[in-house]
């Protein structure tokens, strides 16, 4: 699960897909996940990092992450 190489992101959570001209805004956690995807972190390490940083149930976060990644895929942001 990798971010397409040409996707531009900002620390504020702005995502720009230059292939389609689409742009998106994501919240702080979404932005962190995008950052980790950009650094080619594995899903497992993303889950561990987020669960260590926030008070969140791991099962719940895995479901949310799955939804989020589906959205990113639909928007052709992921490879």
């Amino acid at each position, binding site marked *: 699960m990798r971010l397409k190489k040409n996707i531009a992101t900002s620390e504020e959570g702005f995502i720009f897909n230059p292939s*389609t*001209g689409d742009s998106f805004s994501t919240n702080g956690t979404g932005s962190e996940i995008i950052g980790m995807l950009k650094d080619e972190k594995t899903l497992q390490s993303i889950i561990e990092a987020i669960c260590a940083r926030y008070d969140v149930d791991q099962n719940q976060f895995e479901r949310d992450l799955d939804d989020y990644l589906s959205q990113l895929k639909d928007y052709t942001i992921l490879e």
Partner: protein
Amino acid sequence: MENLVKNTGQKNNQKIVIAVTALNAIDSPGPGVAVIRAIRECSDFEVRIIGLAYESLEPGIYMNDLVDRTYQIPYPSAGTDTLLGRLVQIHQKEHLDLIIPNFDAELFNFIKLKDKLLEYGINTFLPEMEQFEARDKIKLYEFGKKHGLSVPRDKLIYQVKDLVEAAEQIGYPMVVKGKFYDAIIANTAEQAQKAFYQIQAKWGLPIIAQEFINGTEINIAALGDGKGNTVSVIPMRKLYITDKGKAWAGITIDDSSFIDLARKFVKITKWRGGCELEIMQTSDGKSYIMEVNPRFPAWIYLSAAAGQNQPALLVKMAVGQQVTPLIVYETGKIFIRYAWDLITNIGEFQKISGSGELEGKKSK
């Protein structure tokens, strides 16, 4: 020799005198003002810009910082002899080096006249008549079929009853289009008939009934050197579309499939000059060519903003300079069109209406 030196743009401190049409920067804008803006932005040459206008209220006439002097010219329906007569008259005063026509409806006449204009030392950088006609709306489907390009099915309509047959072949919704401009989406036979009469009254026959393709609208501005080489390609996605289907905002995008498509078109046709490919990309990623406009689009200034100044490149090629094809451009460059109330005086309006000429601020 004087002309030769002037035409190749080699003379130092010599302004290139360029006449530009389509100064109608209105809600469905002509490209003239954008073309001039891009040319003026290029620091490689000095220019004097002559506006050529059909009507007294074309906004570009009054944009004194862009246009040095404007002349009225006869409507395309007056024919090539009348047009040539007027252009020679203007040339005697202005010593034109180059004319850049930007209206679909006038291009036939200018292409017909290009050899004669050259005899007067006036360059153009236009496609051959054969190239021009091959991409005509009324022949586009056949053109696509011949060259392996996806083009929606269509049928030429000469009388309203032909719509029935067209609907059997194409189905609804269908797009009812004029031979030069205008397109209306019709969902029913009644809507198609209404669109037929509406467009016929404005643009005459034939009308084109085209298969409706749903998707994302992408426009591509391309510049060909006339030998099959593409000098520049800029793809743009429409972000905001007016009720006339025009882009009111757009963004440059990075998708090599659009670049390849434009290059293929330029190579096949050996296109000379600017053109615009109107593309519809379906959700499964298939790209259909909806239309090919034989001139720069109204959003062409975006090409300059993105790093490939197509109007300036055209000027250089037209005056005989060598240009290197450009590859790199900036993606994510956005244009947002806006409306602006330009104020002028009745005296200015009177000059262009009465004498057919109006001088801009720069040359005063």
